[in-house]
């Protein structure tokens, strides 16, 4: 079943075609890798999917909470998140001066069942709901083993944990599609391995469809079922890790053409 | 860390100095304390400081002659920044901390209006030298003033325009942020229309504006016979200058705020009229004496607000002398008996505590030495 589909998705900045005619068809439960050299337009794709940029052409269809495919290309980011698609950012965008727990609580924001008046006056139901949110958030943090840092400020976390926190925060929005932008950047090999396991785990646990951008090929090749390779905004390859890894176009794009001669 | 210590040190010193000042600020019981609330900082501080200085001059003179009731007079001056809220704070401070029973002030009508009720309720005699708004003395029997009411001067000038200048069309350019200006505008326009004239243009500016070309161009197009400029000399001199530059030939009229105009404006001001109770150029002996003393001490020519402040101090202190006390309830009766010539004219008070004094209409002329001066045109007595 298709949960995310793009049709000839394109965006132009000035005269530059940043992404051209991208056609994706993502099935439920898939784990897709989006790769390509720096500046290939990967993050731009994420920004269009999540409504930060409005595409100049093409459509984006996403399955909403009722199971219908809906055109989201004109929606605001928060509306898209409400439909069930959440993301992380390449250059971590945590709420730095807030605690770890608050970061997650903001992610959980869409699921809060009391209104602001109840919040201001702490009317009945407030404490119960607050407790539920608290527990849910801590449970998520626990999965990523940062629960013990709940009350620390996000900016004081080490880099790797900040990346994890971003994922937790995105999970707190209860998405069914998760977009991860370089989740392993800045992690050492050990941490990267753990992260691979975690990503697999949360996919099962929360019934997620995941698209990730990653430079760490170990991670991409290790967990993705399907890989889409972008270069200059164009899709140059699409297939299983093995197929992609041996695609001459990809090798050329990635390792430079010297390799052709060398290999 | 070191920087923080320095900063902390500075703050400590400031507070310490504050405490010392406060502790030593109390006067003995052998003095009569008079509170003064003046705008000595902020946008009208040039008026406020002159008025305060004149009051101080008067008090020093009286003290040199032995004071009042055998006691020295001590002034406690508070700044109001031309802010009604600060005025109120100053009044409450003077009343409760300094236990003052007589207060001179405030300078502008908005500040004075903010405290009249409070002063009345507290039983403090409030004597404003300069607040012209009609409503100032409404609050009760303890509120006095020594200046004209807005309505009086507006009427006088409207009457003068119609009867003496045969004007039929008048224009007004006023400061919309200033109640003195709006009050005068209202009374001028009402009288002018009531006497059969038409107001062909009413334009305004915001206090602090320096460019009036737009309004003048518009007024010029309406072609009035007279242009009423109810504001102080500093703004008026700019307006007249710009008006004449544009070739507007209407005769300009103004209130007592114009009094120092001859010191500020160029010869383009010649031929215009204003009403006044004081002019530093007047031949009057009292006036010349005051101007001389003020100049001697402060180095500048006192303006009308200074003269009003000087008079206010004298009126109040002489009344205290007559009453034998500064108890407001007694003092107010003594004040009502005022009947004497001061720098700004011969003053008595009507039943609503406004001064009854005649106003002089003056014409700006060029003196024999080429300098601007004023020429006596006539005297208008209050009805």
């Amino acid at each position, binding site marked *: 079943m298709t949960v995310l589909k793009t049709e000839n998705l394109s965006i132009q900045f000035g005269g530059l075609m940043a992404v051209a005619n991208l056609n994706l068809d993502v099935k439920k439960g898939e784990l897709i890798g989006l790769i390509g050299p720096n500046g290939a337009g990967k993050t731009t794709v994420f920004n269009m999917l999540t409504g*930060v940029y409005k595409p100049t052409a093409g459509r984006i269809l996403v399955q909403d909470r009722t199971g219908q495919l809906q055109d989201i290309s004109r929606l*605001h*980011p*928060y509306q898209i998140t409400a439909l069930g698609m*959440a*993301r992380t*950012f390449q250059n971590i*965008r945590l*709420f*730095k*001066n*807030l605690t770890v727990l*608050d970061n997650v*609580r*903001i*992610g959980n*924001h869409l699921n*809060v069942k*009391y209104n*602001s008046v109840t*919040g*201001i*006056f702490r009317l009945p139901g407030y404490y119960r709901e*607050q407790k539920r949110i608290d527990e849910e958030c801590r449970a998520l943090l626990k999965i990523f083993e940062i629960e013990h840092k709940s*009350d620390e400020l996000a900016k004081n976390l080490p880099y790797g944990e900040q990346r994890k926190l971003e994922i937790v925060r995105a999970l707190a*929005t209860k998405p069914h599609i998760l977009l991860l932008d370089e989740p392993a950047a800045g992690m050492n090999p050990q941490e990267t391995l753990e992260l691979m396991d975690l990503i697999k785990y949360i996919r099962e646990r929360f019934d997620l469809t995941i698209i990730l951008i990653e430079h760490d090929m170990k991670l991409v090749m290790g967990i993705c079922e399907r890989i889409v390779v972008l270069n200059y905004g164009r899709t140059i390859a699409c297939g299983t890790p093995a197929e992609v890894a041996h695609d001459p176009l990809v090798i050329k794009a990635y390792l430079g053409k010297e390799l052709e001669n060398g290999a | 860390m070191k*920087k*923080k210590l320095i*900063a902390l040190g*500075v*703050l400590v010193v*400031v*507070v310490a100095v*504050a405490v010392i*000042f406060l502790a030593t600020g109390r006067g003995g019981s052998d003095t009569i304390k008079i509170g003064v609330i003046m705008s000595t*900082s*902020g946008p009208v501080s040039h008026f406020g400081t002159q008025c305060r200085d004149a009051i101080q001059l008067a008090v020093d003179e009286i003290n040199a002659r032995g004071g009042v009731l055998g006691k020295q007079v001590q002034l406690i*001056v508070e*700044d109001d*920044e031309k802010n*009604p*809220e600060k005025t*109120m*704070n100053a009044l*409450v*401070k003077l*009343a*409760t901390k300094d236990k003052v029973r007589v207060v001179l002030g405030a300078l502008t009508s*908005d500040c004075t*209006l*903010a405290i009249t*009720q409070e002063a009345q309720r507290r039983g403090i005699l409030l004597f404003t030298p300069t607040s012209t708004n009609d*409503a100032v003395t409404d*609050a009760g029997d303890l509120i006095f003033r020594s200046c004209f009411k807005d309505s009086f001067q507006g009427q006088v000038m409207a009457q003068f325009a119609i009867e003496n200048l045969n004007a039929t069309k008048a224009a007004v350019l006023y400061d919309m*942020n*200033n*109640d003195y*200006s*709006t*009050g005068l505008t209202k009374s001028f326009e009402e009288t002018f229309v009531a006497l059969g004239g038409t107001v062909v243009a009413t334009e305004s500016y915001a206090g602090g504006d320096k460019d009036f070309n737009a309004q003048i161009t518009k007024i010029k197009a309406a072609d009035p016979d007279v242009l009423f400029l109810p504001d102080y000399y500093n703004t008026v001199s700019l307006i007249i200058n710009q008006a004449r530059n544009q070739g507007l030939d209407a005769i300009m009229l103004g209130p007592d705020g114009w009094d120092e105009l001859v010191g500020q404006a160029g010869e383009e001001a010649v031929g215009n009229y204003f009403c006044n109770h004081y002019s530093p150029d007047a031949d009057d002996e009292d006036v010349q004496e005051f101007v001389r003393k003020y100049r001697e001490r402060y180095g500048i020519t006192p303006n009308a607000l200074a003269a009003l402040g000087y008079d206010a101090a004298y009126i109040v202190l002489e009344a205290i002398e007559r009453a034998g006390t500064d108890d407001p309830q007694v003092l107010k009766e003594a004040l009502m008996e005022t009947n004497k010539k001061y720098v700004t004219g011969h003053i008595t008070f009507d039943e609503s505590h406004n001064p009854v004094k005649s106003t002089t209409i003056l014409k700006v002329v060029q003196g024999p030495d080429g300098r601007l001066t004023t020429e006596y045109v006539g005297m208008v007595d209050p009805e």
Partner: protein
Amino acid sequence: MSKKTNTIASALIVALFLILLNLLVWFRVIGEYTSQVLTIAGINAIIALGLNLISGFTGQLALGHAGFMAVGAYTTAALLMKVNLPMALAVLGGALMSALFGFLIGLPTLRLRGDYLAIVTLGFGEIIRVLMINLPELTGGPAGLKGIPTYTTNFAWRPVIPFALVYLALTLVVVLLNNLLNSSHGAAIVSIREDEIAANAMGVNVFYYKLFAFTLSAFIGGLGGALYAPFFGYLSPNMFNFQKSVEFLIIVVLGGMGNLTGTVVAGIGLTYLQEILRFLKDYRLVIYPVILIIVMLFQPSGIMGLFGNKEFSLTRLVSKMLGEKPLGGEESSDKAGEVQ
């Protein structure tokens, strides 16, 4: 369980403290001048809290809060004088009218960022002031509006009642704002300041929350003005000029952006400082900005930066005194009266 007792205990302490403070005023241990200044200080703190909500917590610089104060004050005055509404309703009406203004102003302008929003709010503040000057039937024009009915005509009660009401209102505003900011909706508001794009991506309807915060901020600003009108009894449009708006901003920054305790401390402290400096006579307004600059240079994070920008929490203090384990900073009932 103990959390609840702590909250109740703190509420009791706050109540006792307020009563004690008012008794001090009633018996003139706190003199009339001091209580007068403190009442104004309390009102300034309330309005600055409103400004802090939009500028400190939501991260949207606003420079026209004197305008909201004016709307609140004039509306209350008009309701009292023209409609003869009871005091409580008139005050509420003033605050609501200001909230309405906030909503209408925020609707088109809150999409602007940073300095542009600042200048637009500054513009609205000035427009409100100019309109007030040109509506003499309602506002008395530049000469001002006098004779506004006061809270009480009984002379002995005059310093007490406004003081009590203002500090009650201040306490309520602090507690309720604190509640809001600790709720999920408050967290959403703060997330906008931290990172608008990330907030949006987390499902926070950024514009809605900005508008909500701005309207609430205008409501609080209007409440300050509404409390002011019957306390002061006199209003003039020039009291609500740009400089007044700047005064609120100074309070917020000096107290620490996004810190309720700091705003209350700075609001009361700065208002009081201006009066303390009266002994400097003509030099007062020369020294005041110097103090301001020194504090900014040496303590740029505001006074609460000295305490790690933490909010003062009475419940935490209570639980500490009862020898219990601290419960974390979640519940913090900040109290205004503590400060002077």
